[in-house]
């Protein structure tokens, strides 16, 4: 079984933390509990640098919680999440977050900033010189298919849903992060725009080579975008496989998702 970049860790003994070997992202026996409710149940997986993992699952399966553990918005109640070999609890959270792009369904653009100011935010926080921020902002808007001359000075309220989401993606890419996190970013868009943005995501992925985690409940989207698919069922990892092999999965939740195709 040769699956480059995919390794389900069943043991974590004797693991070296050397930079060259370190997986970009790793969950080690991660559980998350609120009161008596178990949101995540002993999650174990590793994602090599440059790969795209799709976290697939129903609402309430824990996929968003798992995603938020990577940029330290949520911490495991048991186990640890490693980014670049270092547990999130030991990262300087500001540094960790500035190195991770984050795109959510609600987009969360700053309504009082122009498109340009939104995209240039992290570079500004990182104190890039203004000319470099301006050049980067224009380059990124171009990359996501928005003409900088037309959109740079608009406010988010003057954009359509699809345009907003493009700005959200450009903003996440701005400071050239190592990791990109997507939380159902295209869920609220019409099917045609969604397809366009999925294509753009694939084109971007081939060009910029980031380690990405993409949360969705849409099995088609998972099959299109992932280099690996992790299926979560009520906080447990039912299967972790490739898009090619996913249709052969025999688990009950996998069959349920495949029946929607």
């Amino acid at each position, binding site marked *: 079984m040769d699956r480059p970049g995919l390794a389900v860790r069943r043991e974590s003994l004797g693991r070296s933390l050397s930079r060259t070997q370190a997986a970009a992202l790793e969950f080690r026996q991660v559980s998350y509990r609120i009161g008596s409710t178990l949101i995540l149940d002993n999650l174990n997986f590793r994602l090599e640098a440059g790969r795209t993992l799709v976290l697939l699952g129903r609402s309430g399966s824990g996929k968003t919680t798992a995603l938020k553990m990577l940029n330290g*918005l949520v911490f495991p109640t048991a186990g640890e999440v490693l980014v670049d070999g270092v547990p999130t609890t030991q990262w300087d*959270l500001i540094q960790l977050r500035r190195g991770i792009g984050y795109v*959510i369904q609600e987009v969360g653009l700053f309504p*009082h900033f122009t498109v340009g100011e939104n995209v240039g935010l992290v570079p500004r926080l990182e104190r890039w010189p203004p000319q470099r921020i301006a050049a980067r902002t224009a380059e990124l808007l171009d990359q996501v298919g928005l003409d900088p001359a037309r959109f740079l000075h608009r406010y988010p309220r003057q954009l359509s849903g699809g345009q907003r989401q493009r700005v959200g993606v450009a903003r996440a890419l701005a400071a050239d992060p190592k990791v990109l996190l997507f939380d159902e970013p295209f869920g609220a868009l019409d099917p045609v725009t969604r397809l366009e943005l999925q294509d753009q995501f694939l084109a971007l992925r081939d060009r910029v080579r980031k380690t990405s985690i993409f949360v969705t409940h849409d099995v088609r989207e998972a099959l299109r975008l992932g280099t690996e698919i992790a299926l979560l069922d009520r906080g447990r990892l039912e299967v972790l496989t490739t898009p090619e092999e996913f249709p052969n999965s025999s688990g009950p939740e996998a069959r349920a998702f495949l029946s929607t195709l």
Partner: protein
Amino acid sequence: MISSFLWQEMARLTGEHFLLVLVSMAIAAAAGLPLGVLLTRRASLRTPVLGFANVMQTIPSLALFGFLIPIPFIGGIGKRTAIVALVLYALLPILRNTLAGILGVDPAVRESAIAMGMTARQLLWQVELPLAAPTIIAGVRIATVTTIGTATIAAAIGGGGLGVFIFRGIASVDTTQILAGAIPAALLALLSDGGFSWVERRFAHS
């Protein structure tokens, strides 16, 4: 009919009234804005602090001025006591609107800001305060307009201001005197209301 002496006194008392309001509002804002921000961070403080400010509002204004007179340091006769009372009145709208403005920021925007690596200070100054600004300014506006009216009662405890005319007018059944106090006070209130609504519009983003 209106003597030049009355005009002069009107100018003087209007100035005094304005100063009374200005000082009270400056103190109320300087205390209320940070306290309001603190309340957004510490939910456990909300009930006691807002409860205190609420109770202050329910005390009839004339009674509050009276209550303060026997209290050492902040009480007594004169401007200081009047300012303390006016500050206590102005606190509630400022606190409540600061809290509502910041808590009203779209959770997705707040989460994005945190996820992009903003520090707590950057989140407050670059995202929360600018987005809450119209609501916060509306709170200061309501407080100011109310304070201009309430400040007429300051004269009852020797605090001066346009209330001097009104109380004198009532005592001597002299409508001219009452109007000499009431009209400038109403104009002050209208002017500041207009000014604040202009500022409010300038800060509105959506």
